[in-house]
């Protein structure tokens, strides 16, 4: 009886995701263009691979679906789906190589609807399995390092070198490195500045209750201003500074460029840092501060040794919001000439070149994802320590 119910209970998530997973096999897995701006032509599995390979791929996809429908143990699911993701990416590189072999060098191959659909379904299944595993902090750290290493290996190995995105990168590797540097400067520079100003400001308004509402209201107001408006309006005072303050222009301050973008990102960063510092210190248990006072700690010692360490998870949560937000918003800076990955995004939009858009979007998303994963780990570590 127990065995019977176990077998009949099918995994509902798999039942839903089986639709895109199997439909992906019938759609265009790759798209082919005779040159960079020609319209894409769809290529199905059968157009790319020989009969034997196609049957093997279809058979493994069906088998995978059936196994996942009845297999409930998260660890097993994660292992199987992880393997499937790797095979999926290898097939992408191999397929692109096959299509490029008989074509002119100007031809371009990119992932098609089928690839993205299958990839999306697999990633969702993998994320679900990992979420159900509830991994420990150490396991999460290992998983993160493993994923980054695997990604770096795939990119270095040349497995995906035949894809259009790789060709787009090869033509712009210098610009790409410059954009990476600019993007990191924008996102992390403003983050650091916000920490230096925001942490003391947070501590101050936590102590002085009368200042609290006006400061937090003002910072909320700044957060509400649309990014393009703030980036744009900041050009005005900076152009004035560049024109009227001696030495400012030679120090690199101009109306447009890095300076207004850095200042705008700094202003946006203040609210999460200040508000979370206040909330974090507010949440420190009363008896902890009382014990510290009883031990004869001065106000500063108490802040440094008791309150800030206990508030750290909440402050770091504010830092996580800031980093993700800054990495995303830094793309808008490209509109005012600050550089960064946004340059490729807006150029790509202008030329309707999807690969160029992706060249800007993918590193931005990867960077934001990495920053948030690292911050999540740090928050979990601090939580573990303070308990």
């Amino acid at each position, binding site marked *: 009886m127990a065995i019977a119910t176990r077998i009949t209970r099918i995994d509902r998530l798999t039942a839903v995701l089986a639709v895109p997973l199997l439909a992906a096999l019938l759609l265009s897995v790759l798209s082919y263009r005779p040159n960079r701006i020609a319209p894409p032509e769809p290529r199905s599995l059968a157009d790319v691979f020989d009969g034997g390979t196609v049957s093997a791929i279809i058979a493994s996809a069906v088998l995978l679906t059936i196994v996942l429908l009845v297999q409930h143990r998260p660890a097993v699911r994660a292992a199987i789906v992880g393997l499937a993701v790797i095979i999926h990416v290898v097939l992408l590189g191999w397929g692109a190589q096959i299509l490029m072999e008989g074509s002119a060098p100007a031809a371009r191959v990119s992932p098609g609807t089928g690839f993205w659909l299958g990839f999306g379904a697999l990633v969702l299944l993998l994320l679900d399995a990992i979420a159900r595993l509830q991994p420990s902090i150490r396991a999460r750290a290992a998983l993160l390092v493993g994923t980054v290493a695997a990604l770096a290996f795939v990119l270095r190995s040349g497995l995906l070198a035949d894809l259009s995105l790789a060709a787009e990168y090869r033509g712009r590797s210098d610009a790409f490195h410059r954009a990476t540097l600019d993007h990191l400067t924008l996102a992390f520079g403003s983050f650091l500045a916000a920490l230096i100003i925001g942490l003391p400001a947070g501590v101050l308004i936590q102590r002085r209750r009368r200042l609290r509402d006006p400061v937090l209201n003002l910072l909320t107001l700044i957060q509400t201003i649309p990014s393009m408006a703030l980036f744009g309006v900041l050009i005005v005072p900076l152009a004035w500074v560049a024109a009227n303050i001696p030495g400012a222009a030679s120090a690199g301050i101009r109306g447009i460029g890095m300076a207004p973008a850095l200042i705008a990102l700094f202003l946006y960063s203040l609210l999460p840092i200040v508000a979370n510092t206040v909330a974090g210190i507010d949440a420190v248990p009363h008896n902890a501060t009382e014990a510290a006072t009883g031990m004869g700690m001065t106000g500063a010692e108490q802040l440094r040794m008791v309150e800030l360490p206990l508030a750290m998870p909440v402050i770091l949560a504010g830092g996580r919001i800031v980093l993700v937000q800054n990495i995303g918003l830094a793309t808008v800076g490209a509109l005012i000439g600050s550089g960064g990955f946004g340059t490729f995004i807006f150029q790509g939009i202008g030329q309707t070149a999807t690969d160029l858009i992706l060249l800007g979007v993918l590193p931005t998303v990867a960077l934001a*994802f990495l920053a948030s994963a690292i911050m999540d780990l740090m928050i979990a570590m601090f939580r573990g320590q303070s308990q």
Partner: protein
Amino acid sequence: MTMLRWILLLAITGGLLFAPNLLEPMLRPLAPAGGPVLYNRATLSSLTGAHLMLVVMAMVPSTIIGLTLAVLVSRPAGAEFLPLSRTIANIGQTFPPVAVLALSVPLLGFGSLPTILALFLYGLLPIFENTLAGLRGVPGAVALSARAVGMTPGQVLAQVELPIAMPLILEGIRISTVIALSTATIGSTVAARSLGEVIIAGLTSNNLAFIVQGGVLTGCIAVLIYDLFGLLIAFAKHRAGIETGDQL
């Protein structure tokens, strides 16, 4: 304080929309010599209308779908999708709005459509997350006693759970709307009609007067809408019986 802020915001917005000529002398020093001071390719009021239209067209479906999804995964039948949906919501937040906008263009071409799609997709997450948080915050005893007095599950949802969760739901819609107002500005880079057009025109023709008109107007409208949601949230809290000292 709040009244003063509203009067100021409304005066600036109204001035830019309906009496731009009054503001011309203030903006003139910012315009290039001999160049136009006031944006002249379209009226600011028509662009504001188009801008708000984009936001409404995206936020209505975002709210309906985000709310429905959150209700579904919080029911026993949808519990299996809960861990995954939270992971998606978490990861989805790391996607910058500009990325969603840029990737909508290859799918839908240029114009309003990709912008609305991006605003809609990006708006789902805060509404979903906040609705979920609001529904989970309903005390179990309250829902249970509502069942005990003979309410159907549907009645419990509509008459007990949603009203209690309403302040948080509105907070989610507020976050989504503020992001949408911002992203709609960037939508003008993919040829959607919005106030971003004025800022872009200022950037390309090096006309600071255009940038200030577009920037200040979008900023004021965003803050006004943010404050409007503040009033709605205060009202919803009052209805749900949550007493707070917050003004907004």
